[in-house]
């Protein structure tokens, strides 16, 4: 076939065109078109996302993309949130910071998730990047308020400091004082995870008062309710606000101050915090409720009655995070008042209790699926489910993209028919053609995986526990789910066969986690030795995995693709093939 002559652009023109192409997916496509585009694109790439810090080395990234200004890196696998990844496993950001300190002096943004960040890393960041603007540490750990003090003191152009859900060693609430009096550029501050009983409140007030562009402020629990008014008066332009403990003695003057302060905040769209709620103070926020798009009540132990009153004031709500105190009746009220709802997360107030403590069943979710036409994302903890409810939800809401159902007791059958929930979840994947994330629970056989493999073509992330009967289940998923990137499995009877038969698939995914399954050490060794672009990590804290016979099932298995080869920072309880074993020398 004759190829027409390509129209050739000068490089600057191409670069200019690329500057309008923002999404990572599109940038990646552009870089693969041809040699010249590859080179130009790599020079003008400003933002990179590394979904697995061990998939590539910092040096490789720097070599390929020399002009980066914004970096996002993720470390531990998702199941680390459930303590399945032992301490010391890895995911330390320091090697990255060290390399970037030299190579990217103009780096502006660092966003990390599930990584170990020490004070040394924070101090290095503070010292190395003169124009540093954004630091987001999501579910990170390993640092203290000393590290934060270094950032506050040195980063004159800092706009965003967001510590969401990280574990911080609170040495002193006074790190806030390290923001110089001349510093005024703060736009977003999230310190909701800090535990310190003494946040230097006066420093906080002064900081808030002198930063006119502040739009997001999420306080920690220690900030008392009676201080909120003075904060809000200093920052009436806030768009997102998180309270501290929302409790105080009932006093009319405190209430009216609070209500007045809230009513002054005309731009407020998102509220969170609400630890220890005293319901009598809830009406203080009513003046902003009509404009609220996000409401996070996942700490608020308030009863259904108060919750119903609250949500009925919020017709513009798009995201709601709430405890199961909302009960079915509250969800029905939600379904009738909040027609713009896109995302719902219902968390369990008492997950370890044997008997249900609240009247929240599958009916609540069915009601929301019927009443909220824009509902796309669901995370729902409950104690019972039925196939008929799941089928109804699927038919009502084919636009679902995220469906994470957590029936608290493993292997719970359909409470009406006592059958498995295969058919219900099958309906979900069949009807919701754009489903990207799915978590399964309840009694499930291999059949549900057959449905998933057949229908869930856009599924990117799947979480499975206590499900399936045999390797066939895993085989269905690995062979059928074309878009699968992350698969996490625990306590399922999946063994070597499906894994080995679909080894190639693993190179097309970001990662696979399997714990308490039946994959043998021998299979892991085989995979590791023969697939050079996969890192096969066997995690076993009881004893070195290679001290056992090959038939032994491994405790935990984490497989991820990588061009960086084996990592060098493995603790002793992690086994991975090394070069010697790959060559058959050990």
């Amino acid at each position, binding site marked *: 076939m004759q190829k027409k002559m390509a129209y050739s*652009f000068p490089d600057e023109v191409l670069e200019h*065109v690329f500057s*309008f192409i923002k999404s990572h997916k599109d940038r990646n496509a552009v870089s693969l078109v041809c040699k010249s585009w590859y080179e130009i694109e790599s020079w003008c790439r400003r933002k990179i996302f590394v979904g697995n810090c061990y998939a590539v080395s910092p040096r490789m990234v720097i070599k390929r993309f020399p002009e980066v200004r914004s970096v996002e890196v993720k470390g531990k696998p*998702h199941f680390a949130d459930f303590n399945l990844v032992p301490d010391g496993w890895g995911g330390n950001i320091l090697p990255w910071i060290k390399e970037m300190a030299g190579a990217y002096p103009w780096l502006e943004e660092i966003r990390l998730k599930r990584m170990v960040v020490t004070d040394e890393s924070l101090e290095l960041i503070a010292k190395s990047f003169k124009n540093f603007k954004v630091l987001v540490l*999501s579910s990170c750990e390993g640092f203290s308020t000393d590290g934060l003090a270094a950032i506050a003191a040195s980063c004159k152009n800092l706009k965003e400091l967001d510590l969401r859900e990280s574990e911080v060693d609170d040495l002193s609430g006074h790190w806030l004082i390290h923001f110089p009096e001349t510093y005024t550029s703060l736009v977003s501050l999230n310190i*909701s995870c800090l535990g310190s009983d003494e946040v230097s409140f006066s420093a906080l007030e002064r900081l808030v008062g002198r930063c006119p562009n502040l739009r997001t402020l999420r306080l920690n629990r220690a900030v008392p309710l009676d201080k909120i008014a003075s904060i809000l008066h200093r920052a009436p332009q806030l768009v997102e606000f998180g309270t501290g403990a929302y409790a105080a003695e009932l006093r009319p003057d405190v209430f009216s101050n609070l209500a007045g302060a809230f009513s002054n905040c005309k731009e407020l769209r998102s509220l969170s915090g609400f630890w220890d709620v005293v319901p009598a103070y809830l009406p203080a926020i009513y003046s902003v409720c009509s404009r609220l798009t996000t409401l996070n009540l996942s700490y608020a132990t308030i009863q259904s009655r108060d919750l119903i009153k609250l949500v009925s004031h919020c017709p513009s709500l798009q995201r709601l995070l709430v405890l199961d105190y909302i009960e079915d009746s509250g969800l029905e009220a939600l379904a009738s008042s909040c027609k713009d709802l896109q995302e719902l997360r219902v968390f369990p107030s008492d997950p370890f209790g044997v008997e249900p403590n609240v009247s929240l069943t599958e009916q609540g979710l069915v009601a929301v699926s019927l009443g909220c036409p824009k509902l796309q994302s669901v995370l729902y903890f409950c104690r019972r489910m039925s196939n008929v409810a799941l089928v109804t939800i699927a038919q009502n809401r084919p636009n679902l993209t995220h469906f994470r159902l957590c029936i608290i007791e493993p292997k719970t059958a359909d409470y009406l028919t006592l059958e498995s929930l295969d058919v219900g979840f099958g309906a979900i994947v069949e009807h919701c053609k754009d489903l990207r994330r799915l978590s399964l629970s309840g009694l499930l056989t291999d059949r549900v995986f057959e449905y998933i493999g057949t229908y869930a073509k856009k599924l990117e992330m799947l979480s499975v526990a206590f499900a399936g009967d045999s390797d066939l289940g895993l085989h269905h998923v690995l062979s059928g789910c074309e878009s699968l*990137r992350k698969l996490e499995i625990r306590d399922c009877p999946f063994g070597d066969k499906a894994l080995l038969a679909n080894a*190639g698939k693993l190179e097309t995914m970001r990662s696979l986690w399997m714990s308490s399954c039946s994959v043998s050490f021998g299979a892991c060794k085989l995979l590791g030795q023969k697939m050079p672009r996969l890192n096969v990590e066997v995690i076993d804290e009881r004893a070195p995995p290679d001290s056992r016979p090959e038939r032994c099932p491994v405790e935990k298995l984490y497989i991820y693709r990588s061009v960086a080869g084996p990592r060098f920072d493995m603790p002793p309880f992690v086994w991975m093939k*090394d070069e010697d074993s790959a060559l058959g020398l050990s």
Partner: protein
Amino acid sequence: MSEVDMAIIKPELMKSYIWLQTADGSIQQVEQEVAMFCPMICHEVIQKSMGSSKNNAISLPQRVNPAMLSLILDYCRFHQVSGRSNKERKSFDERFIRMDTKRLCELTSAADSLQLKPLVDLTSRALARIIEGKSPEEIREIFHLPDDLTEEEKLEPLKNTTDDPRIRLLNRLYAKKRKELKEREKLKNVEVEEERVDDRSVDDLLSFINGDSRDSKGIKTSKSKKKNRRRKDQQKSTSGSEATKNHNKEPNGLNSVCRSAEVGQKIQPSFGATSNLQDAEDDIFANKNEFDDADIDDEIDPALKEKLDREVEDFRRILNSNWPERMQEILSFGQERKPAHFSLNGNGSIRSTDDFAMRILPQLASQPGQF
């Protein structure tokens, strides 16, 4: 006739014109206010006094052919009129930009050479929109670009890594360290041994001692072992949560200390995350049920089991073939789309290794939710 008389009779003659010459030699005159909208032309007129007559026509850059010049002048003619509203301008732009990709490319290039930034932005954005959402192959088709990235280039980073002498040394040191640890473990593996011994019933031991030809059971993951493990998990999670004071990961009333011996995990609801719809801690799995140790194979339909066995055997055969040869094969594929080498199902869901190689480098820097 005086100049003034001429102006009354033929007012358009009094408009000033600029003379422009395109690379093909053709010369034309263009209304001054229109032409001057282009910074490059403006510069020639003002700084170098060019363009006032046919003889000193401004030579336009090569990338501006007559067709492109015509388009550009249309653009300038519209936009140089000051009274227009933003809405009008936007509307004009949207209509103006509708042309085939080839012309769009030429136009971008031409506008760039005349330094006409607003038009460069307009055309660049249009090109960006064409590129967005497409695969590399599709983009190549549209712009007639060569497929000249080689496999070798993509595999390069990995080769570099393994060749690095420091890395080889580290690997060897690490292997040594692990061996040492293994030795140490063997010395104090009493606990482990005891677990193994526990697996054998008294009967077994007796019959062994008495010389019965009973197969040694070997190491079997028994239920008791699982219990040990689970208890350890629980201890870990409870001690972990207490030690780290993980109260901020738990809502009110949720005590991370396990109340029943069975429960192994804490739940961690997501909170505070305003913009991140995709990530949150969620599922809780109460670790109650014992894992069934029965031979899993028994559950599979024998025909399917056979199929799976065959597939695994195929896979093993392929893997056990000479590895360097394999790599050579892959590297020499070039543009061919061979079927997946390592997947043995037929439905093509597993991409070939060369596909993976093609994607791996940029995909490592991909969007959340993509990698």
